[in-house]
């Protein structure tokens, strides 16, 4: 019993990962756009579960807050309010198929190699636990503290540059939306 539970705890990552892949499959293959968003939501929740299983609590909860709590809500709003039936008839959602299939195939192969290494490689016996590699971050320092030290002390400049990139994307979106109306 004890060993069974322990091995289950070690493999929670795989469990949540499989669930996430399943939900992502629902997201891609379902016909209705709202169902697709629900699949996306569950996939995001399972990814948060993956992070929690790796003892990266802060990342997991940030995933919950940012993706599940914020971004997917916006997706849902857009999908609910835009009338999709007429687009479905035009088949605009199926246009990317010829590029997508080889790309997805290549991606699957690449990830299969990584997963094979993790699951059956020399280190497969170890529990999947995130290793704190940042300078100054120790085991007993909390997760959130370690991440914030990385973001606001060690890597402050790259972090700020990233936020500028987001700003550029935001301005670009506004410009695109504006030109349509005029």
């Amino acid at each position: 019993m004890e060993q069974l539970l322990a091995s289950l705890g070690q493999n929670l990552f795989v469990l949540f990962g499989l669930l996430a892949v399943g939900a992502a499959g629902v997201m891609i293959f379902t016909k209705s756009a709202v169902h697709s968003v629900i699949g996306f939501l569950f996939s995001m929740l399972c990814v948060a579960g993956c992070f929690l299983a790796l003892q990266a609590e802060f990342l997991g909860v940030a995933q919950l807050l940012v993706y599940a709590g914020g971004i997917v809500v916006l997706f849902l709003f857009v999908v609910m309010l835009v009338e999709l039936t007429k687009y479905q008839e035009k088949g605009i959602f199926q246009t990317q198929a010829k590029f997508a299939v080889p790309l997805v195939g290549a991606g699957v192969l690449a990830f299969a190699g990584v997963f094979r290494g993790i699951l059956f490689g020399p280190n497969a016996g170890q529990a999947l636990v995130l290793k704190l590699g940042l300078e100054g971050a120790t085991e007993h320092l909390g997760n959130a503290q370690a991440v914030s030290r990385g973001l606001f002390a060690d890597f402050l400049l790259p972090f700020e540059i990233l936020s500028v990139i987001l700003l550029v994307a935001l301005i670009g979106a506004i410009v695109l939306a504006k030109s349509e109306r005029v």
Partner: protein
Amino acid sequence: MMPTLTQYLVISLLQIVVVLGFVMTLVPLLTFAERKVIAYVQVRLGATRVAGGLWGAQQGRLHQSRTVTGGLNGLMWFLGRVPVFSILRGLPMFIADALKLLTKEDIVPASADKAVFVLSPALALVAAFTVFAAISFAPGALFVFPKAVPFLGGLPFNGFLTDLNVGLLFILGIASVGVYGIVLGAWASNSKYPLLGGLRSAAQIVSYEVPLTLSLLVPVVLTGSLNFNEMSTRMATDVPANGMVAIGRTLIMFVGFFVYTTCGFAETNRTPFDLAEAETELVAGFHTEYTGMKFSFFFLAEYSSMITVSALASAFFLGGHHLLPFGIQGFVHLSGWWGGPHIIFFLFKIFTLLFVFLWVRATLPRYRYDQLMNVGWKFLIPYTLIMFVIAALLRYAA
């Protein structure tokens, strides 16, 4: 001694059962209390007077000796007249309410999206209940299993489910998933009033999440932690060396309490922010098409998130597991039992705040939609930002 993994899981399971049992008992009692409190405040006659069994409401007294039900009715009626037992008045309405919810026909509209229609109440309820995983009802062990108990003897039964390092973020993250229950339920009903109600409440919840989170940043900045237990204990008992800082800390906790509670009312869709259920405009809002147990799932979710909001407000602003609110416990030395943390203090604060929820519902009218958005974006967000800056200054000065 350290519990083994199996023991740990068994204890966690017991804790989950206890916490969910507490919530599931509290919610029906809360609806009963809601009827009675509103009836007393607004001088409504029903809920403060209905006595007797389900079968003969008030005239039970006339038949008291003839039949069994008549006798029961008479007994209840008599008990309702005794001041101590007057709490029993209105009880038949409560029982009838519960029976009605359980026995009503479960209707799925013909043009509804069936899978989503079934999924969304579950999503709302799961999100509302999962939050309790990170709420701590008592900082330490509630009791230790006696040695006589097989398998678990000698192990502590904690007042919290998990002592998560990022407990507060976990609560906020899970609570923000609850909005999907409302939006998806509204969309899946495939009817215009639920859709309008759902969009309204989703916009409301998404906008009030901002000041809610910002107002909770004040305790985060003051304590420098995201752990529920550590935050609540340090907010209650920390004494800064500087006297001015201590006073400023108490004041900002006092203001922060009201700001947080206001946002909490909006997050739970309660009066005066219950635009989602504005009867005169939207029939019943997002759950118009829901009946029976599916409806009561939404109902349970709303009331258990009321409990969550009360628990957070009492933990971070009202002193949590300690007796005195607003960090006053740090200055006043209380001796013995009164000075320590106790689950009773925490529960008492939760119940008081739940009463405030009912009190407000009985007193205040509903906001208009533009007023609601004005209050959120033009007042609460700037206020919480100012509070955040003041809290950062206090942290810097301490």
